[in-house]
């Protein structure tokens, strides 16, 4: 494992704050895309250039860094969404929540029975913090498109853990997660379009009208 891993993970963590703290939708998508691309680099660094890791890295950068942001931007354009994030919880409290989640992840990771080579590494806490951030974005952002972004962040967290344990965890699980994510974004894209058409708005809070 290369010594460049931890700085990259710090970048991932900082991007969490960026995604939560920005008020512009384009910035959210850019942040998520950059985080995805960084994860591809991470896969290369962790396994220092094995064939499998190159494949994973390429697939990750392609899917998370290019394809998904492209789909999200297209959805934005086609549904002509307004460019603000519209959170339920304001930006500063959200940032505080991410900070608390990051701190809690570090505390929690220390208590996990990890393999000796992972103790002291940022892999596990960064993963947990990113998952927490994903949940936060999912739960507190009003628009369907930010929900999709939150889902990607959540999966990025899972991916960090997957990369760390790639040799221990079957490659297939990771591919499965990628596929799952792709389908999820796909479905989200459809929902975004349909919700927009039916309600003339992309506010998922309005979905509660469908209740009963």
């Amino acid at each position: 494992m290369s010594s460049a891993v931890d700085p990259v993970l710090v970048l991932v963590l900082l991007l969490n704050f960026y995604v939560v703290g920005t008020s512009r939708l384009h910035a959210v998508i850019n942040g998520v895309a950059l985080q995805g691309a960084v994860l591809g680099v991470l896969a290369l660094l962790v396994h220092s250039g094995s064939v499998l890791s190159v494949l994973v890295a390429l697939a990750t950068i392609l899917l998370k860094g290019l394809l998904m942001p492209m789909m999200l931007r297209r959805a934005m354009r086609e549904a002509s969404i307004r460019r603000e994030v519209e959170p339920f919880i304001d930006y500063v409290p959200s940032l505080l929540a991410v900070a608390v989640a990051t701190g809690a992840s570090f505390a929690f990771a220390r208590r996990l029975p990890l393999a000796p080579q992972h103790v002291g590494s940022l892999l596990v806490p960064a993963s947990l913090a990113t998952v927490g951030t994903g949940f936060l974005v999912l739960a507190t952002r009003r628009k369907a498109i930010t929900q999709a972004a939150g889902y990607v962040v959540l999966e990025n967290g899972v991916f960090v853990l997957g990369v760390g344990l790639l040799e221990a965890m079957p490659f297939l699980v990771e591919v499965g997660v990628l596929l799952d994510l792709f389908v999820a974004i796909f479905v989200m894209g459809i929902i975004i379009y349909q919700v927009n058409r039916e309600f003339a708005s992309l506010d998922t809070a309005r979905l509660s009208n469908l209740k009963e």
Partner: protein
Amino acid sequence: MTLHLILLAIALTGVSGLLALLVPRAHGARVATATLLVGATAGAAGAVLALRGEAVRRAWPWAVPGGALSFRVDGLAAMFLLQIFVIAALGAIYGVGYFSDEQQPQHARKVRAFYGLTTAGMSLLVASANAVLFLVGWEVMALAAFMLVSTDDEDPVARHAGLVYLLSTRVGTLCLIAYFALLRSVTGSFSLDVAALDAARPVSTALFALALAAFGLKAGVMPLHIWLPGAHANAPSHVSALMSGVLIKMGIYGIVRAVSLFVAPPVWWGGLVLSLGIASAVLGVLFAIGQHDLKRLLAYHSVENIGIILMGLGVAMLGRAFGDETLFVLGAAGALLHTWNHGIFKALLFLSAGSAVHAAGTREIDRLGGLSKKMPATAGAFAVGAIAICGLPPLNGFVSELLVYLGLARACAATPGPLFAAGAIGAPALALVGALAVACFVKAYGAVFLGEPRTEAARHVHESGPAMLGPMATLAVLCVLIGVGPVLVAPALDRALVSIGGSGAPVRSAAPLSLLTWIGAPLLFVIAIGVIWAYRRRVASRAQPTWDCGYAAGTARMQYTSSSFAEIIVGLFSTVLRPERSAPKIDALFPAASHFHSHVPEVVLDRAIAPTFRVTGRALASLRWMQRGSVHLYVVYVFAALVLALLVFR
């Protein structure tokens, strides 16, 4: 070689419809059908090879946790595989004429894609010897079939049928996962190819119960049949043929496999399976008699025939429990042969019913009538299927039911005890089922094909094309072939019996199969002469109005309807059938125009399960506040559950 053929078949049938999505619309049907036919032919050839040779076992590693690409094609698997490929191929050919792109531009491509996937899923699960691989096949089959059932998704009735099917198949899969997990805890691996287990342990009873629930749901055993009538009625007819002929048999396959894991199943297992079989058979045929929808009627007959198969299986299990090898051979051979036979004649019935429904545009029996004059080939095919399903000689239904009868009779010869009781209850029950089935098909055939057309739509029907008649003719020939020459299939049955723990005693030693040929062939000859004579006479006959009791303006609607024909039997069994009727009260000499309506509901679904859901819903009303309809709140719930799980299980 054998296994490669079957794997090729799984791959080709699976991609057949998906491949067609890649080519231009005009060639889609051809590409899909051709690919599926090539695959099915390869698979059928592989299955025949497997039935002639030794069992094939082969395994490759697989990265999935607990999984292995391990396959086993023994006699039992080969029997089911052959059935899958033959019926799927015939259904696909039928679909070319019945469900073409011109007639169904929105659905045809979707149906072809999922039809191929269903076929591939079924053959995968039958050939697999690993629980994870089995589940993959099972789920592909179940979910693709869901898409097929809800093909006509603009129709709320079809949507509802699809939903009921989806819910029951989910519950079934849940039981199946529990079953495999428990099996793993007993055997230590996910392999399904395990040595004999001890049936006396308590965990074995749990295994048996789980298997019965999981596979019984798929097979449509009473009272787990709730999804079956709606699903079969609303799917396109060649899909109904595939589902009723083959898909529900996957449940039978699972039960047979589960039971054959154990050395000596206790007596009560066999008794339970036999009782479930009797309940399914009797109630299935009773509900069938009450139906007004032709395909729904056929669907209830699937419940009945699954019951007959289970009765055979129950007899075989009793034979095992009492150490009577002949009883085992008779019951198991009867059950397995009936699995084949039901696949053949039920597919034939659904295809010919589909042909009639396609021509007349309605499934309502009481809006059809007189179709045999315009559609003689369809009428003939339906008649062959009807005679076969009633278990009358010289067709195939008779042979398998005879094997079960012989088993039950042998049980009757035992000293008084549980075995005697099984025979003494089972044999009359099977006779009752046969008689009621005859009544039901006299009703169905008479109302649909005989008499005068009741509506204009039924008057202006046209015979179906060769793509639809060809598969029907093939199935009819199979019905006759197995009926007259059962010795032809005896070697296949012997192979299958050995693979589920038989000692190798041939079926021919237990039952006088060659005698059936000596009886059947002359009978067939006499019937053929009779048919020709009747046909000539009909050509010469003239149409005359029936005596109309002095009523001056008789119409075709005044014929005996199917509901009036069934009224006596429905009335006799009204305690279980719970028929609903709304009749006008006539109290004046010249009453105004009015309506009469009668209906036999799906008792288990409408009277048991739906009320249970309602009561549960009301009991949980106090938790309604949690369901805010906000996606965001639901995400919070998921997160809270996750954190809680981390805290509890750390």
